[in-house]
């Protein structure tokens, strides 16, 4: 993925913060955002899975993004917001600390992952934008949800 091409296209990103870091997800993959309530934890499941919850009759598997991205924060309480994503007829909710605005960013400005990016993060990141005063890490939804590969690699 080169940042050199003069592709005039833009992509819209839903941005969020987790453990102080700003991330972006392509908007076409985001179904909705919601406030997760009553998460049922699943015994014996991987730590990255916060549990399951009921969203209007659908069962949503909640993925704890702090754990998923290996970002630790002092306050370990349940993250207050969730981003709903559909993947292969299943619903997932990515638990995040706070939602940001939707940003429309030119594809051309997206830079490749810095080579020294944390390995765990690099596996799910699809590039970085330099915004004013902060960096936005674009996440690849499918790789974020590929928990099995992560566990195997760990």
């Amino acid at each position, binding site marked *: 993925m080169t940042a050199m091409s003069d592709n005039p296209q833009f992509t819209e990103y839903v941005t969020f913060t987790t453990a102080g870091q700003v991330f972006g997800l392509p908007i076409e993959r985001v179904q909705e955002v919601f406030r997760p309530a*009553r998460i*049922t*934890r*699943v*015994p*014996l*499941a*991987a730590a990255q*899975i916060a*549990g*399951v*919850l*009921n969203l209007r*009759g659908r*069962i949503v*598997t909640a993925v704890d993004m702090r754990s998923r991205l290996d970002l630790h924060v002092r306050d370990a309480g349940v993250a207050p917001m969730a981003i709903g994503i559909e993947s*292969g007829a*299943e619903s*997932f909710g990515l638990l995040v600390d706070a939602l940001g605005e939707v940003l429309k960013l030119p594809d051309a400005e997206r830079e490749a992952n810095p080579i020294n990016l944390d390995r765990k993060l690099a596996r799910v990141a699809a590039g970085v934008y330099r915004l004013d005063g902060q960096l936005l890490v674009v996440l690849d939804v499918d790789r974020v*949800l590929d*928990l*099995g590969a992560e566990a195997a690699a760990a």
Partner: protein
Amino acid sequence: MDDLLREFLTETNESLDRVDAELVRFEREPNNARILANIFRLVHTIKGTCGFLGLPRLEALAHAAETLMGKFRDGMPVTGEAVTLILSTIDRVKLILDEIEARQGEPEGGDSDLIEQLGRMTEVTEANEAEPAALPAAGEAIDKPQARAAREQGGVQRSEDEHGERIASHTIRVNVGTLDHLMTTVSELVLTRNQLLEIVRRHEDSDFKVPLQRLSNVTAELQEGVMKTRMQPIGNAWQKLPRVVRDLCAELGKEIELRMHGAETELDRQVLELVKDPLTHLVRNCADHGIEGPAERAAAGKPAKGTIRLAACHQGGHIIIEIADDGRGLDLARIRAKAVENGLAGEAEIAAKSDAEIANFIFAPGFSTAARVTSISGRGVGMDVVRSNIEQIGGTVDLQSVRGAGAKFTIKIPLTLAIVSALIVEAGGERFAVPQLSVLELVHASGSGEHRIERIKETPVLRLRNKLLPLIHLKEVLRLGESDGKNGFVVVTQVGSQTFGIVVDGVFHTEEIVIKPMSSKLRHLAAFSGTTILGDGSVIMIIDPNGIAQSLGRAAQAAAEGSPERDEHEQAPTDDIVSLLVFRAGSHQPKAVPLSLVTRLEEIDCRKIEISDGRHLVQYRDQLMPLLRIDTQSGLKQDGAQPILVFSDRGRSMGLVVDEIVDIVEDRLNIEVSSDRPGVLGYAVIKGNATEIVDVGHFLPQAYADWFRRRDASAERLLRTVLLVDDSAFFRDMLAPLIKAAGCQVVAVGSAAEALKVLASGRRFDLVVTDIEMPEMDGFALAEKLHAMPRAADLPVIGITAMVSAEAIERGRAVGFHDFVAKFDRTGLIAAIKDRSADIEQAA
């Protein structure tokens, strides 16, 4: 795919299944013109449609079959051979249909082989017909009544047809996907209704109450209605069976009649699909294993024709399917032998099992007693798959067998998979659903009440109506924390033949739950079978008793593999409350041992007790276990079951013979009077009785002289390969297991020459144990030869001899023996092997 073609495929496949069944009936009743007309019409329709759709290959095949059947219709006699030919033609048609479905066109190739055969059969029968034709008067006379009968029956059939058409105009074909979607939607509705009901329950005087009640009723009705649309008669799953049985009869040379009852019993389409294969397998099994050949049946005084009976009926929310045969029944003796052979259980365990439990072994993976492997069964695959398939849909399969009179499988499955009744329980602050189907009963256990949770070592058990029920703490299995071990509800659950209790902290209520599939990220968790949404809107996990039972197996395995480190001090009395096993042996005075030391309580059939060298032994879990008596006063029973306490350590067990097991009590163990008598630690007052506290440590060395020494030795994890040379098979058989028991691998050979051959073959050994007195080449010569071999020069050699003389020892030293042991000094031999092993260890 072309709509027309798809429709054709669906319809034809349905018709073909019917033709299969009809043909088998037709063979039995060749004069039933109605059946023939049915078959004829079906084949004719296929032929006609093929021509219309442009499928020449199918059309030619159907045409040839139709021609032959036309002859039948005209009164030609029906032969088994002809039916077989038509059946194989139909198989070919199915094959081509499958291809058409996959490739959307007719496959290459021709069916000239079948068409030719069909043509020949038609001609042959024509020729046969030509002969009676020479006597037309007689021929007509014979034909007429048949023809008339055919016409009459034809008349009957026509009216049935009209009736059929009337029904047809009231039915429509609906895509299965549509129905499934409808079911999902209704499930959502049920959930929402449950949620609303829950909300209204909290507001007593709500205006919503009445309309909600109405909604609730309508929802229930709708649910029932939608379920009905998915219902299909179980006969649909049976349609192929007459054909299967017929083919088997032909193959096995048996005569079997398949009777079917309750084919109209309806069940959910999804369940029906899943139960189809297990049913077919069971019927095959009955035909192959169950029903005897005609000669054997005649010898047993049974009619030559065997019967397989299929029956289905509703019972509560379940459907019960029985598959019974009047064959030879299960050979329990062979199953017992096979179970031991396959290592599924030890002999003592087998002996203690009931016939029903033994019969259930046939569901174990890889189990087959068929001496001869046929194409039908006896490959040892299948019965385990049958059970797991049925259990997957929340069903159970049970087996009853009477030797010589037959066997009966009883399958119990839920009517539908989508909505089930579940028990909502709590463990570790979380709620879980346990499918009601697998729950046998609920028992409240408390420290003081009637039912108490007790522990044998680490294993929790519950005494329930004179049986010990193994328990699993849900909290522990799910790693939700430590259980307090005393209080809780025991959900008595059955999986296969295994009954066990799941201990939970609380039980709420039962609820109709809608099973939602597990997230793909959680599907690997065997403990859960799905998720569901409760009336209050929260999501909970559905417990899979099968998965929980697996953890029971693991615990049992872990317990069998090695008991945790046991401290000597544990035997010493402490002031803490301990569980004591109180028993009587010899004298009337009660005796006790700390329960934590006892591995198992067993009852052994007295006939199994062997006496060797003045010691009592019993085969226990494929090992010989010494039995010891507390004192000389106590004797072994002469018949019946002998209760014993089994103490195990590092794979070795010893049995302490007792007269009766009195109780398990929890008490403070205060040894008030110490004893000088060997085997007695002292006396304590337990539950008001002066009780002798038995010193287990005294008995262990009696069982194995090296019990305590072994502990140190085994820490070195010695696993050596020993070559044992002895010309006497008796000594080989006696010594090999002994060396094995010391943790070595043994290769036993019968002569020095053989030993040299094995060594020359390049196999590595750590040690050679050889007899001295052997014909041809004796032990001394062998040792000399060994030391001349480059690879074996450093191999330590231990000589065993019937007579240890100073001279022999001297000579042994000269040829390089490392040690010398008398043949009967078994402990000496083991010690010598250990010494050598230790040397090797150091060298390494």
